[in-house]
């Protein structure tokens, strides 16, 4: 009988103390990013450059930026 009481007390203590444990608070680490020119097939890709090719992407950026230059467009 006394063994049951002791066992019950121990179980109660374990259950009540379990509430005092802290959930882990480790911050998520930053994920690595993929290169900007590496893209899966996307229906919204601008035409005129080859996805996955860095040189082609850089050339696309340069030519696209010239659309902002009306002095170049007016020639």
């Amino acid at each position, binding site marked *: 009988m006394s063994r049951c009481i002791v066992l019950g007390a121990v179980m109660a203590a374990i259950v009540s103390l379990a509430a005092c444990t802290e959930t882990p608070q480790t*911050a*998520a*680490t930053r994920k690595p990013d993929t290169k900007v020119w590496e893209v899966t097939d996307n229906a919204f890709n601008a035409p005129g450059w080859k996805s996955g090719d860095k040189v082609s*992407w850089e050339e696309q*950026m340069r030519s696209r*930026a010239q*659309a902002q230059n009306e002095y170049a467009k007016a020639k």
Partner: protein
Amino acid sequence: MARMKFICDAERCIECNGCVTACKAEHDVPWGVNRRRVVTLNDGIAGEKSISVACMHCSDAPCMAVCPVDCFYRTDEGVVLHDKDACIGCGYCSYACPFGAPQFPTNGTFGLRGKMDKCTFCAGGPELNGSVAENAKYGRNRLSEGKLPACAEMCATKALLGGDGDVVADIFRTRVLNRGKGSEVWGWGTAYGKPATKS
């Protein structure tokens, strides 16, 4: 290697807020968050000047320096991005940024401060380029689609230029040389007034 930069031509900006609208629409930016905004100096006074301001993607970004969880990173193109899964929404970056770029959407029923949101130069975040997850967290990744930021491409007067720093600087220089003025609006004089002449 391209170093992506924005430049706003104050001689051309007409304070239409088209860049702000383009940004909000392109990335479905939540209510109360403005990744970009138009600031007017000497508003209402003849000669007022407006410039469009967002994250300047600093070469030595103070937000990166102060972030306690190191959630910021700089891409090879010089774009300063962050990982929202690592961000704890502490707001240190907001205090450090001289342009007020970091924004904090209210989150949940009690308006708790959410994770930081800012201009991504339309380059998304660390999720897979063009993925649904990236779009939901950071908005559209136009750079990976071979396009420039929506704000710059949508600007009606082409006041806001975005792209490789060398290219946009060349475009701006051509303008200034053609119109014969405009470079002086950038710098100390605009921010603090003309220096007093010595008697």
